[in-house]
């Protein structure tokens, strides 16, 4: 199982899903009307490391985080 977390203003509970890469996650989330609008401008982290490509394998216990646009300060 991979845990998917939605950070900051994205109002969605975490998911626990059976996926083995980010491509599969993209397919699943693009179907989800609640968060489809956030996908275009959210960054993605795997185990708290930001990634720049979907070409990332996932294994059991991994955590994927979605980070929408930020504004600290």
């Amino acid at each position: 199982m991979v845990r998917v977390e939605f950070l900051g203003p994205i109002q969605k509970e975490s998911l626990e899903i059976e996926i083995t890469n980010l491509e599969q996650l993209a397919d699943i989330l693009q179907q989800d009307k609640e968060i489809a609008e956030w996908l275009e401008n959210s960054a993605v982290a795997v185990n708290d490391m930001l990634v720049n490509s979907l070409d990332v394998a996932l294994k059991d216990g991994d955590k994927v985080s979605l980070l929408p646009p930020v504004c600290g300060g």
Partner: protein
Amino acid sequence: MLYLYDGALNVSKILKDWYDEEANSNYGAYIPFVGTVRSEDGISGLSFDIYEPILERWFEAWQEKARAKGAIIKMAHSRGDVMLHESSYIAAVFSPKRRVALEFIDEFVEDFKASAPIWKYDLKDGQRIYASDRSTAIKGSGILGVKK
């Protein structure tokens, strides 16, 4: 040297503590940047969410860059609500010479704005409203939204 607080920062105490901590480190320049909540658009304050694991990695990468130039960075930020004219953010650079400190504080604060995993909300009419219009997508965003 990353400090997170619930609510507004005690600016004078933090600036004093940091100055005192480095009193004998032989840095010639100390430049803090203090960010304060401005009254605008009828807000009563701001509120912040922070994702700490990635903030810490981001900060540590900057600390490495600073160390390579003989400098150090300290940073404090608020979690939760911060009201008008209170402060939510302090970043500071200490360095032996002024040019490094002047350049680092500018680059650090700008990258902080663009990259630090912190989300801002306006407190207005009893609501907590995501400040989407002032927010910046982190570099590399959007990969999950690309349609095949």
